[in-house]
Each structure stands twice: as structure tokens, then as C-alpha cells.
């Protein structure tokens, strides 16, 4: 008896685990480029899309979220951070595109977080592992709460890490630029000093020759 119910619960867990997934990706979007991602969703499934621009220019990017029938579900221009939480109304392939076409020479590094809660028949409110039915004891509820809070904590940590990466990239860029510009200025000063002297010498050499010639006449 026990083994059969255990088997069933394991099968259920395994089955459910396949329908909830989180994808986090960080990629570089070159200038004048558009990058699209697609996923096939079932009607009724909840999805959450979060993105943050980590480095590049004014830290902004355009986003467009399209349903399978081509209808634009969400559109935003020049945003640094956004979080979109929606429920799929149709079956099919949903698409979201990031566009850096307004920028002429800055690459942008974008972080995206795509969570899908895919199977509406099973009441899924969090992440794996769990059972689909059955009464939860007090401990199980508390454990579920802790799990949710830890997920939030990890999410905050990720965004903190991204903001820190933004600051650090700027600082490293600044350091390199200070070095190059200072060296350049140093060389420029020396060139200008020598150049000025040579130019002055050339004036007086010519003038002196011509004045000497008029003298001898």
C-alpha cells in the first residue's frame, strides 16, 4: 500500500517538475541589433518576465512582448528595469524582443529572468518539490513559506549583484580612460613644447637671411 502511494507521489512530483521552470540569461546586445526569444505556452499558464540592463550607454533598451496571434501584449521603450507578470490567454508561441536599434555604438548587456508556471490543472503556487493534492501539515506550510521568502531573497541578491556590476564596470572603464588620456596629454605637451621652439627658430632663420641680404646690398 505504502509503496504504491509513494510511487504515485513520486510520479506526480516528477511530472509537475517538468512544467515549472525558470530561465535566467545574461547576454550582450550589440548596437542596432534586435534579439528575440520565444516559448510555447499553454492557455492559463502564468509567466513572469524580468529584465535589467547591466552595462552600456544610458542603460536602456526597448522591449516588445507579442502573443501567438501577433497582438502586442506589452511594449516599452528605453527602460532599465521592468517586471511583467501575466497569464497566457492563448495557446501558442509567445515572443519577446529586446531592441537596441536606437543606439549607434553602445553594446548593452541585458539580464533576463523568465519564469513559467505552466500547468494550470495543477494548483502550483511556488517551486518544486511539492505534491499536487492532499492536506499540508503546519510544518509543510511553514516550510513552503520559508522557501518563498528564500526565493525572494535570492531574487533581491541577483538584482543587487547586477547593480554592483554596473557600478564596477563604470569604475574600471574610468580607470582605463584616465590612464590613456593622461599618457596622451603627457606626450602632447612634449610635442607642443618642441614644436613651438622649432617653429620660432624657423621664423628667425628665414628673416635673418633676408635681412642680411638687404644689408649687403
Amino acid at each position: 500500500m505504502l509503496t504504491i502511494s509513494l510511487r504515485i507521489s513520486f510520479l506526480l512530483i516528477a511530472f509537475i517538475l517538468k512544467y515549472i521552470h525558470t530561465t535566467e540569461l545574461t547576454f550582450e546586445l550589440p548596437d542596432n541589433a534586435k534579439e528575440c526569444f520565444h516559448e510555447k505556452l499553454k492557455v492559463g499558464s502564468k509567466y513572469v518576465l524580468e529584465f535589467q540592463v547591466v552595462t552600456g550607454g544610458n542603460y536602456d533598451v526597448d522591449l516588445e512582448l507579442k502573443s501567438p496571434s501577433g497582438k502586442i501584449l506589452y511594449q516599452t521603450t528605453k527602460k532599465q528595469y521592468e517586471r511583467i507578470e501575466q497569464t497566457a490567454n492563448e495557446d501558442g508561441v509567445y515572443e519577446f524582443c529586446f531592441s537596441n536599434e536606437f543606439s549607434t555604438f553602445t553594446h548593452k548587456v541585458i539580464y533576463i529572468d523568465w519564469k513559467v508556471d505552466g500547468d494550470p490543472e495543477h494548483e502550483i503556487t511556488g517551486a518544486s518539490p511539492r505534491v499536487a493534492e492532499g492536506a499540508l501539515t503546519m510544518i509543510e506550510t511553514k516550510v513552503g513559506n520559508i522557501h518563498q521568502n528564500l526565493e525572494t531573497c535570492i531574487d533581491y541578491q541577483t538584482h543587487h549583484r547586477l547593480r554592483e556590476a554596473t557600478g564596477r564596470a563604470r569604475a574600471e572603464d574610468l580607470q582605463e580612460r584616465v590612464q590613456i588620456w593622461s599618457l596622451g596629454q603627457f606626450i602632447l605637451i612634449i610635442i607642443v613644447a618642441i614644436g613651438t621652439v622649432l617653429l620660432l627658430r624657423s621664423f628667425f632663420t628665414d628673416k635673418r637671411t633676408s635681412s642680411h641680404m638687404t644689408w649687403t646690398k
Partner: protein
Amino acid sequence: MGNQSFLFIIVFILIQLILPTHLLYFHIRETDRKCFIEEIPDQTLVIGKYKVELFDPQSNTYLPSTPGIGMHVEVKDPDEKIVLSKLYTSEGRFTFTSHIPGEHVICLYSNSTAWFGGQQLRVHLDIDIGEHAVDYQQISAKEKLTELQLRVRQLLDQVEQISKEQNYQRYREERFRATSESTNQRVLWWSIAQLLVLVIAGFWQMRHLKGFFEAKKLV
């Protein structure tokens, strides 16, 4: 007992064989190279799963599996050293563990022999890091844990990841501070050097021109 564990193994294998059909996908050309950046602390497990489909112009769809298409997976650590560089088939799974904290770059490109352009490929990709990479089905099958024990195990993994990330955060902040202080030092030294150069250049100019005019008997 043996029968039960045998059944678990069968179920486990069957479930692993169910191909992940609903994953995020994107399109690239055959000769394109797509890279993803993962900033991770050290001793973190990363598992990546991908599936490649080739566009068939005749039927105007993407063929589910094409032999002959392989994907190179190249992983570079923060010091630009190659951690993993392997050629897999059209469907593959790669793992690596980071030894140095920092930005690792995972690049995918197909083993196409074309020079440029080429056909379109559809790549399904899923990258799991740290506690997302842990396979709880496998653990529960292997160690025969109850539901509650499995959940507590997940909590432990999550807390471990949080503490690793905090430690990495401290290391990053240290680097940031070092960079800022180095910039500060550089600005100071370069300013002093430029001041000296200007003064020396001025003196040299005056002396040289004075000597020049005296030689030309104009002064």
C-alpha cells in the same frame, strides 16, 4: 525492496528521457556565435541543456532532429581560460563547476563549415545554476526521502547558495574599492607628472631660445 528500487530507476530513466519540449528558444544563423554571461561565485555547479533544430525551406518548418548538426560549447572563466570546449550533437547537456568566482562566458556555435550566412537554426536553451541545477527527483529516488525531507533539503541548498553569493559580494566589493583607489592614485600621480613636465618644458624653451637668439646676435 529490490523490486521497488528497480521500479524507481525505471521511472527515473523514463522521466529523464521525456525531452524538455517547452523551453525558451531563439534563432541564430549557422555561422553565428551566441554567448551568455554568468556571474557566479566559486564552487558552483552549472548545468546547461540545449536542443538544436534546423530550418527546412521545403516544408517551412523546423525539423525536430537533424543528424550532422553539432554544437560547440565553449566556456571561459573570468581569466579568459577555457574551462570546457566540447562538440556535442544536436541535443546536449553540459556541466561545469566554477573554480574562480566571476564572470564566466558560455558560447554556443554550430560546427557548420560555411563561411558566412547559412541556414537558420532554432536553439532551445536552459541554463541552471547552483541550487536550480540540483535534481531533486534524482536525490529523492536515490536517498528515498519523504516529501518534507526533500523540501528541507531544498531549503538547505537555497541557504547555502545565498551565503555563497554573500561571500562573493564581499569579494566583488573589495575589487571595486581597489579599482577606485587605484584610479584615485593614478589621477594624483599623473597630475603631478604633468605639472612637472609643463614646468620643465617651459624652462627648456626659455633657455633654448635665449641661447638661440644670443647666437644669432639678436639679443
